[in-house]
């Protein structure tokens, strides 16, 4: 199968130099131009001709519904600016950030890309995103109609790294059809955690469907609960909680599991997937799921049952207006100004706003939000708007954008919480493990 002598390249190198060191040098010689090549990509040659044809690449994650809406909105921009065309790419959330990272590494990052809290600090911290501060300053990017919290939320280390493309907040979604069938009351905004767990226990007993998904692995539920205790997920560049907090959180849910308020650990594990179609409230394996309010329409597509949404238990003041996701501009894009103009259009144009609806969350621009609220026809979008407006009255101050390492903190919470759910660790052991892992993830000494 193999030739009895080495491949010719090797033969030649070794003959000429005779040592292995030389081969290593050759390798280095191959590496260097490659490195320079990747670095050399992306200049900033803006042309002054406003009508020269421009193709902008744009990349987002989401389901087909989002793709249809986004493509329509981009088409509208194209009609107004016929010289601008789009190269549109979209895919499911799983694998999206792998692809974005790979494209970035190759110097081929899209001109415009969607991003969220998990990675915005990573990308901004490494100067992949264009700093939009000057654009926002001179009005080329109009953020004046944004609520202040949303604008600040896209700011990392003093640089505006992304434009918030929707506002959402935590939403506890419940299966209304199931509850009605057994004449059970719906959960209410403002009920205490203990009341909520008792309610769920009652649902389990009556309806024979577990009353609530176990939230111990759900970071945003933990976060709200921390804020209700006067703590936070992060404080400056450090963790905003300690082992006692995590222990208490794990104990709360251990109690809920023992009372039969939640499904068994293997089912909880299924529901811990980020995929919307696997949420237990739509797979019928629990009466509630811990999601974001803007995900209602997508959840609705996965079930025949009617769904309702309320705030997470406890004081709703702990919830906040969160930027559900952002669009950022690649710093190496050859058409930065044009790309920012597209963002400006998508965020502020009422017609574009009407097309996009609440798919990414409530529109960031408050005037557009009003237009959308007046014109929207999709019933689950209507429901989202009503609930978020209701919750919006009691919103507390928004926390800072999560730290670099946030996605690792999230995956560690899932891992440790599942250890506790499967009974492989006590809440206290789990808490110690999670605090250690979270500190390592954000680089806190």
């Amino acid at each position, binding site marked *: 199968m193999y030739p009895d002598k080495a491949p*010719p390249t090797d033969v030649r190198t*070794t003959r000429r130099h005779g040592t292995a060191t030389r081969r290593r040098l050759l390798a280095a010689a191959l590496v260097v131009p490659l*490195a320079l090549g990747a*670095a050399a990509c992306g200049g900033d040659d803006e042309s002054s001709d406003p009508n020269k044809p421009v193709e902008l690449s744009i990349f987002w994650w989401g389901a087909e519904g989002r793709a249809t809406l986004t493509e329509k909105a981009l088409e509208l921009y194209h009609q107004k600016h016929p010289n601008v065309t789009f190269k549109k790419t979209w895919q499911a959330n799983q*694998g999206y950030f792998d692809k974005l990272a790979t494209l970035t590494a190759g110097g081929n990052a899209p001109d415009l890309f969607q991003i969220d809290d998990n990675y915005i600090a*990573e990308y901004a911290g490494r100067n992949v995103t264009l700093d939009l501060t000057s654009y926002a300053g001179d009005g080329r990017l109009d953020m004046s109609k944004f609520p202040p919290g949303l604008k600040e939320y896209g700011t990392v280390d003093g640089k505006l790294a992304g434009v918030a493309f929707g506002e959402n907040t935590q939403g506890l979604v419940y299966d209304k059809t199931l509850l009605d069938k057994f004449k059970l009351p719906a959960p209410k905004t403002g009920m205490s955690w203990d009341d909520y767990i008792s309610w769920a226990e009652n649902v389990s007993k009556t309806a024979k469907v577990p009353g609530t998904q176990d939230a111990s692995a759900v970071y945003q539920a933990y976060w709200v609960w921390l804020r209700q205790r006067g703590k936070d997920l992060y404080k400056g560049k450090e963790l905003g909680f300690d082992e006692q907090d995590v222990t208490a959180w794990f104990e709360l849910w251990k109690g809920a599991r023992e009372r039969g308020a939640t499904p068994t650990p293997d089912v909880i594990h*299924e529901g811990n997937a980020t995929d919307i179609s696997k949420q237990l409230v739509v797979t019928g394996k629990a009466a509630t799921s811990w999601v974001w309010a803007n995900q209602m329409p997508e959840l609705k597509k996965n079930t025949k049952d009617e769904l309702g949404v309320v705030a997470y238990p406890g004081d709703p003041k702990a919830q906040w207006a969160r930027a559900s996701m952002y669009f950022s501009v690649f710093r190496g894009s050859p058409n930065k100004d044009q790309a920012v103009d597209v963002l400006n259009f998508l965020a502020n144009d009422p017609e574009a706003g009407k097309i996009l609806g609440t798919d990414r969350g409530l529109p960031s621009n408050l005037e557009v939000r009003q237009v959308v609220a007046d014109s929207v026809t999709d019933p689950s979008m209507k429901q989202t708007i009503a609930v978020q407006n209701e919750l919006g009255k009691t919103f507390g101050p928004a926390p800072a954008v999560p730290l670099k390492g946030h996605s690792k903190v999230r995956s560690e919470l899932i891992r440790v919480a599942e250890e506790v759910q499967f009974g492989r660790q006590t809440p206290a052991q789990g808490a110690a493990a999670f605090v250690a892992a979270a500190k390592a993830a954000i680089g806190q000494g």
Partner: protein
Amino acid sequence: MTTVRTAQSRIEPVRPGPADRQGPRRRRHSENLPGYVFLSPWLLGLLAITAIPMMLSLYLSFTDYDILTPLSEVNWVGWDNYRRMFTSDPSYWHAVQVTVTFALVAVPLKLAAALAVALLLNRAIRGIGLFRGLFYLPSLLGGSVALAIVWRSMFSRDGSFNSFLAFFGIEGAPWVNDPRFALETLMVLAIWQFGAPMVIFLAGLKQVPAELYEAASVDGAGTWSQFRNVTLPMLSPVIFFNLVLETIHGFQGFTAAFVLSNGTGGPVDSTLMYTLDLYIKGFVELNMGYASAMAWVFLLTIGLITVVLFRTGRFWVHYSDAEEH
């Protein structure tokens, strides 16, 4: 598969030719030229797709490369990545343990299943071609994502496997979602795809001269004795070939673990195979320098295991042509 190829080509000794080659070199060179020209598409591919990226990853394994930072700005960190792997990364050793367990169980069982089925199919009965095709089918679907998805739904709590067990009054478990069974479910999936080694075994069995069996039965050997004293020794080169290939394959398992756990290695890291951990470190946590170091340790380890297998092979692999010399 890339790593398989590279693993082998690294083991293949590449030594400078002896001095006496100097004389006829020029003439041979011109004779070989057309050969190299015809080989060049493959050589260029090897260089561009395998050799250069490999060398680059070796370099990156000594840096803090994080994918997003341009290569020109990475920092040289010396042996830090390697040190961290062996001393302060708890998930690393866990992944090693999961992978070794997987390979130790799945590889021998897969080979045993392949050999057993090959023996059954090595006879002249009606419709044998159809049977062979059917048994080979699962491995045609080999690394397929669809198969892993089917597996996931078959072996969940309300999956068809549990319905099947319920027929016999057995209460199943939530196999893929239970840390006690998730890895075992992966092993079963791997073992079930025994088609490729089976076909090779079948070819090997066809090569065993019928006279040997005739002679053995004249000497009074029963079925078991024939299997032990004729089939196994005659088949040992094929067994060895399959063992080496499947061991490498077993260590590299990724797709099924990735799909079954949604890319997390869960539940609670029970399916965190080495390659999956490597992927998470590189692409999710953006520590590509560290992931490169992991890949190199992995490559060297598989290389070492292969060398060990070759060494032990001397004691039990029987090449019939060796005795003719």
